[in-house]
């Protein structure tokens, strides 16, 4: 996640010696995760538009969880915002990951979504490590790796003059 201004082209975690498959695999993983969220979001948009009423209800039911106070507040105080933001954000996060643009920002958003799903679904019959946690960790992994740089638009975006002049913007890119 950290960006070294003295050495913008080489991080401390160097993938260069582990073979040509790694960048391809990272990009593939990113696109698959992107499709996962894009599908979830766009089908909600088709079915409910920007009024996904299950979202606020879901949050209101999280009272007994570790995210309870925040989730219940979000579900009761701003249900209209939640109903719109869930399908919209899922769709945009998915598109961003597929295109490889603003991947770190999108992955942060995806990780926040998955944190609510992991805690809210609470399907821990086989332990706390379940599909939702794996999804959460996938987003964190894409964020840590800066996955948009591999066959993604972030590799182009980070060469723009705007980004060159404002290096901190790279924290939002892959």
């Amino acid at each position, binding site marked *: *996640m*950290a*960006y*070294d*201004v*003295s*050495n913008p082209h*080489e991080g*401390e975690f160097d993938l260069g010696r582990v073979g040509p498959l790694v960048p391809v695999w990272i990009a593939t993983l990113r696109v698959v995760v992107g499709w996962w969220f894009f599908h979830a979001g766009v089908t909600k948009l088709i079915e409910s538009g920007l009024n996904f009423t299950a979202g606020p209800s879901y949050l209101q039911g999280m009272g*007994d*969880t*570790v*995210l309870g106070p925040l989730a219940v507040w979000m579900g009761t105080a701003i249900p209209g915002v939640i109903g719109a933001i869930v399908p919209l954000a899922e769709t945009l996060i998915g598109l961003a990951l597929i295109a490889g643009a603003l991947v770190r920002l999108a992955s*942060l958003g995806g*990780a926040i979504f998955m*944190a609510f799903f*992991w*805690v809210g679904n*609470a*399907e*821990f*019959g*086989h*332990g*706390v*490590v379940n599909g939702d*946690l794996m999804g*959460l960790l996938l987003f*964190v992994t894409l964020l840590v790796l800066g996955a948009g740089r591999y066959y993604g638009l972030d590799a182009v975006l980070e060469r723009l003059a705007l980004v060159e002049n404002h*290096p*901190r913007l790279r*924290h939002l890119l892959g």
Partner: protein
Amino acid sequence: MTNTIDKAAMALSSALLLAGIVVLGLVEILDGVPYGAAPTTNEAGEVIAQPGIDPAVRTGLVLAGLAILGLWGLYRVAVPATGVDRRTTTDATTGSQ
């Protein structure tokens, strides 16, 4: 280049993640049925055994670990790392530029 804050943040984040998932997972197994983090029910659907550790504790530890990682990221946005260019350093030590 990593400084003390970097190392502390990464160590604490990893420790909390592993504590919530692995360490307390082992405790849960040693505590007996249920071995997972959900209650055990009989055929009638009645709860016959509760997990030894509240899942909220375990999920809370994991999310706290990830939150620390996120806060460290914000810190690094505000205070960018100022390490040396390793490629240049290596070239310099071998005499080639």
